[in-house]
């Protein structure tokens, strides 16, 4: 199984539910966004349009971040998911420079959600109550993991990843516009494969040769 996503920008109306869902699911501190939505206007009054483009890690087949990392802290697993090893990462930031999509962030220091620094229980869970992919610390980089913690659990439990809310990344089934899809790109019958074919979904910045596993309907 090679996991990928399809994002339908014709459906997306910029609510940012995916942004919020990712942040809370992955305890992403203020200022960093594993998932964000670009918003811009085109045209002149009254012929104006507004475009929303959600972006997260593309889980490239040819990831420049993985190649750039001097510590070999980034790897791509058997299901195509690109992840940072927080123990190996030394915060060298080559990955941030290499990524053409700007989806990797540096954790310069721990920041509490509330500006006066007071951490809430959600932020102070003991380490054994946090999945390894959420054990982040200052001085390392972080990015979207395709919610591998949820996918891995699904596979372990014999469930089909992407088949429902909890076996998909947190940003997928929460979308009010039904604009986000997740599934097995190796399976031609899978929803994502069919959508890519039927709606001629494209990859962004193809010229960099990164071969993203995230496709866009535009």
């Amino acid at each position, binding site marked *: 199984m090679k996991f990928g996503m399809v994002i339908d920008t014709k459906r997306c109306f910029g*609510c940012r539910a995916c942004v*919020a869902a990712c942040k*809370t699911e992955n305890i992403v501190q203020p200022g960093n966004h594993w998932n964000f939505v670009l*918003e811009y206007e085109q045209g002149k009054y009254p012929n104006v349009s507004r475009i929303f483009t959600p972006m997260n890690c593309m889980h490239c087949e040819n990831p420049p971040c993985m190649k750039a990392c001097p510590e070999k802290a980034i790897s791509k697993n058997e299901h195509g998911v690109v992840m940072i090893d927080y123990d190996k990462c030394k915060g060298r930031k080559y990955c941030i420079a290499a990524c053409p999509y700007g989806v990797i962030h540096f954790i310069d220091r*721990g920041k509490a959600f509330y500006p006066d620094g007071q951490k809430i*229980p959600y932020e*102070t869970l003991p380490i054994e*109550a946090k999945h390894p992919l959420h054990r982040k610390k200052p001085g390392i980089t972080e990015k979207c993991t395709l919610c591998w913690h949820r996918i891995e659990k699904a596979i372990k439990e014999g469930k089909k990843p992407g088949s429902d*809310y909890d076996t998909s990344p947190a940003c997928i089934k929460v979308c009010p516009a039904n604009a986000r899809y997740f599934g097995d790109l190796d399976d031609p019958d899978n929803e994502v494969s069919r959508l890519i074919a039927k709606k001629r979904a494209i990859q962004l910045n193809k010229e960099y040769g990164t071969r993203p596993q995230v496709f866009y309907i535009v």
Partner: protein
Amino acid sequence: MSINRREFLRGSASVAALAAMGDIFFNISNVVAKESMSEIPYAPKEDVLIPSTDTMCVNFCGIRVKRVNGVIRAIYGNPENPQNIGHLCPKGISGLFDTYNPYRVKKPLKRTNPKKSPGEDPKWVEISYEEAFDEIVKRLKKIKFENPNKFVWQHGHGKYLIGDQFPKAFCKAFGTTNVVHRTTICEAARHVSDEITWGNHAFLPDLDNCNYFINMGANPMEAEQWARWLDRKIIENKERGMRYIVVEPRLSNAAAKAHEWVPIRPATDVVFLLAMGNELIKNNLIDEKFLATYTNASMLVDNDGKFVKKDGRPLIWDKKTNSGKPYEGDVEPALSGSYNVDGKACRTALEIFKESIKDVTPEYTEGVTGVPADTIKRISKEFGEYAKIGSTVIRDGKFLRYRPVAIHTFRGLSTHEYGVQNNRARQIVMMLVGAFDAVGGMHLHDVYKTPKYMEPSKCEFPPKRVDLQESVYFPHGTHNVAQQVALTLADPKAYGLQYEPEFMMSYATNRPFSTSDIKKQIEGYQKIYSVVMDTIITELADMSDIVLPDKTYLESWHWSDTRWNLESKHMAIRQPIVNAYNLKYDAFDILMELAERLGILDKYIEGINGAWKIKLAQGRKYTSNEVVAEIAKANGTDIEYLKNHGLKAKKLHSEDIYLKGVEAKFKGPGKPKMNFYAENLVLTAEKVKETVQKNGIKNINTSDLDIVYSPLPRREHAFPTPHKEAKGYDLYLITYKRMYFNQSNNAMVPLLREVAHDADENFVAINTETAKKKGIKDGDHVYVESRAGKIKIKAKLTEGIKPDTVAISYHYGHWSHSIPAYAKKGANPNWILELHPDRISGMNSFNDTKVKVYKI
């Protein structure tokens, strides 16, 4: 013992017992070994999903809350909920921050600085519940003895304290009629327009079958009730082929997804709709059968604007016998024409409508609305043709009328001085093509539930209620008049109120922040002893005498309000997940305590029993947990089931959607008719005039009653007071909602402030060309000034707004002393909105103001 602000804000962080005290200091070397990915296995002590209902806004989405080791770890949508099917917006997802907010009220507070105004430090002192209850009960006992109406209760969208029934029962037991909801700062004009027309309110477009959908100023992709159903239905059906048009001054996100954005001058939509009506009639695209059979369009109206009656029954002109007869038996009503009945000259209501709009041509309309004449002609023609008048489809073996067109609205038509009339125009266009309760048209909710709404008003004077509901001031103000409370408090005698309110209790509402012309609201609330039950110290609490902490929706039991749709309805609960700050009481518990101490507990329980059809025993208090279980039982379901699923849904069938409304209540001879022509308003106007004259009322204008209470919408309704009077103010100001905040109450949620690039601070959206002419660049600070005041705000240039209009979102510009600086950015446009409430419904006017914008 007084505490300083810093201490108060830090508070005693008594968090839930199982929460771990993780790292507070950011020492990297300290942290590296402890936070290893691989060495420590992932083994939470608890990892559960608890279903409940969200109240970050009034969509009441179904949620599942993930709790790990006693801490809320995440909030997911509940796919089992038929309304949101697992979808959520960023507010619902962020609810855990709202519950863990360190700036929440954690203890009862008492004000020690008697001065109440923005900027004043209340100098809060923590008191015990006993002290708070003693103070409250002492005052209320005195009031109950003197005149219980001196006690005023206000609540907002709040968390619907179990469907509003509990405050209503409490206030009834206490003896006051002053229970005031917030609907006139929401969409009351839309409701009252519905009620006048068909005896109840609320509607949903049948989007799965609709082919031409016009949205006039509703914004389900950034806010709005029913958003979590409307949003996906619009998107899906657009892909099916439904044409989607948005008419509104600003390129909202709802407009950004439309096939066509039709920019329109604020407050002029009524003329756009009348022009549509004119075009439909001209092109003979009207459903004569529907008009004659279901509405009173064929009723005969005399030269006084009243129905011609015989034995109290209104007459139609029967084409079979060429005479005036009631619409009963074997008659054939004439839809148009002038007639003479027993020497009385009269015309059909439709004839009057036709004549009244004959000058509302596309060209005239272009001048008023800014919408090109050709666009108006085209949209009217398309709408009429897509309506497929006369056609039927078969659903579940039944022949149903098929009219796949709908005109929808929310704030766009409603938040105006002529909000009811604007909405009436929409309804009339729908009646012209027969699209109500037709397949693909507009489904009307619980039609004719309250026939008296279609009758004239009693125009009460002197008013019994502080909000002047259904008085001569707001004769059809049937949804309370939220903004009026402060104005009456400032000068009760001016409104003929025979008593002076002395105590106000507010629950989950922030009136001074959310209402037009804020300084007038503040003036009123400075004069009354005020107790607030809320989770945060809002601007209203900031001006109050006692603040009692409430539990959030993730900490308490409630029988939840729910939203229905055209496929299903459901019942739901909210259940406690945590008690983040160890609060002893929630608002429901507080009411129970007060009821007992006031000696009205038994009456209160009696009221609750009546409202919910349950059988609580007298003589004891109840927890909300117990009451929710009883309500569940009374609704035929088990509380354990609801605890496990959060809700119980029921599928609706085509019969429920298409056959129980106008088909059942209005169709055919001998049945009541929808008010195409609202004769009741003519009679209301007479009553208003009579009441004003009889009582020498000085503050009601009687020279324009024929316009204000017109039985049919007319062109004058496109010109609210500021448009006519505010000379020298060249721009129209509208206010709008954003997806990231709900009214005024999520400002402190940090995640919402960074979820989008421009969520943190508001701005005045101004057309690029208009800004250039004024020398304003993107990001410049400007003044936006109206006759009511001025604010300082950043400018944002956009092509997505009409050049003569500017827009400001109203969730910003908090000033409460107890709200931290990071949550106070921006400016609140409500300071500068002129307040000219709709004199039919009491609806607060938000979108009628004119302003000028200039660089600082």
